[in-house]
C-alpha cells in the first residue's frame, strides 16, 4: 500500500462514478453515482494525509505542535466533504420527490422541457 496505489484505487472509483453519472437514467441512480465521486475524493484526501508531510515538517528547524497537527488536514477535509455530501443527498432526494410528484417520473431523460 503506497500513496500511488491508494490514489489509483481512488481514481478507479472516481471513473466508475463518472460512468454512472454519464450513463444512468434514473435520478436516484445518478445520485448514487455522485456519492461514489465524493467517496473517491475523500479517499484521496485521507491518503495524502497519511503519506505526505505537512509543509512545515519537511523544512529544517524546530517542529511545532501546529505543524504536526496540520498533517491531519486531509482528515478534516474528509469530514467536511462527508457532511456536505450528506446534506446534498438529502436535498437531492427532496428534489427527486418533488419531481416525482409533479411529473410521475424520475427518469432524467423525461425532464427536458428546457430544451424545446
Amino acid at each position, binding site marked *: 500500500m503506497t500513496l500511488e496505489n491508494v490514489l489509483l484505487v481512488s481514481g478507479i472509483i472516481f471513473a466508475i462514478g463518472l460512468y454512472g453519472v454519464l450513463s444512468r437514467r434514473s435520478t436516484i441512480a445518478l445520485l448514487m453515482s455522485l456519492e*461514489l465521486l465524493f467517496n473517491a475524493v475523500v479517499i484521496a484526501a485521507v491518503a495524502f494525509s497519511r503519506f505526505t508531510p505537512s509543509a512545515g515538517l*519537511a523544512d529544517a528547524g524546530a517542529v511545532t505542535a501546529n505543524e504536526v497537527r496540520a498533517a491531519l488536514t486531509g482528515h478534516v477535509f474528509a469530514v467536511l466533504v462527508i457532511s456536505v455530501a450528506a446534506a446534498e443527498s438529502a436535498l437531492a432526494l427532496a428534489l427527486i420527490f418533488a419531481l416525482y410528484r409533479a411529473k410521475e417520473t424520475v427518469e432524467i431523460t423525461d425532464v427536458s422541457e428546457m430544451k424545446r
Partner: protein
Amino acid sequence: MNEAFEVPTVVSFAFWVASAITIAAAIMVVTVRDVFKAAVFLAGSFIGVSAIFFLLNAEFVGVVQILVYVGAVSILIAFSVMMISDVSHGSQPSRARYASVTVSALVLAAIAVTVYNTEWTLNSGLTDPDAIAGLSGTFIEDEIASGEGRVRDASGIQASDSQVVQTGVLGDSTGTVGALLVREFVLPFETVGLVIVAALIGGLALMRPREGEPDPRGGG
C-alpha cells in the same frame, strides 16, 4: 526510507481486499438495473471505503463514513426507492453507454499517468526525529494550551510532571481532528453547519404540500 512509516504486509493485503470489494460493489452500483439493489451495493461500497480509511490510520473518518453514509445516506436512498416503488424494477437501460465508458476510461488514464509521474514528497523521506515522533511515535509538547509548543521525541527524554506523553497524530487521530475542527478550521466547520441547516429547510420547503393538493400526511 525509515521504518516508522512502513506499511505492514498484513495491512497491505487487507487494503487490496478492501479495494477489490469496494470497486466490485461500485461497478455493481452503476450497472445493476434494480435501483434498490444498487442502493444495497452502494452501502457495500461505502463499507469497503471505510475499511480503507481504517487501514490509512483514519479511524475517525472511517467511523464517520459508516455513520453518515451507511447509516443515513444509503438508508435514505433505499427509503426513497421504497416510496417511489414503480421505478425500482423497470429502470430503463443506460443511455450513451459507449461514450460514457470512453470518457471515464480517459479520465482514469489521465489520473493514473499523473499519479505515477509525479514526484511526491513522502513521510518516509523525513529525517527529523522530532517530526517522525510527532507523526507516528510518541512525543512531548511544550505549552499544550497555546498549540504553538515545540514537539520533541519522547523516547529520548524524561517527561516532567506538567508534560504529557502523546501518541503521534497518525497513531491516534480522533482528538487531533476534533481540535483542528474547532480551532484552525472553525470557519469551514460552521459554514458546513449552515449548509446543513439550509439543506434541511430546503428539503422541508420542497416537500410542503402545495395549495389545492391534499396533505400527503393524510388525515382527510
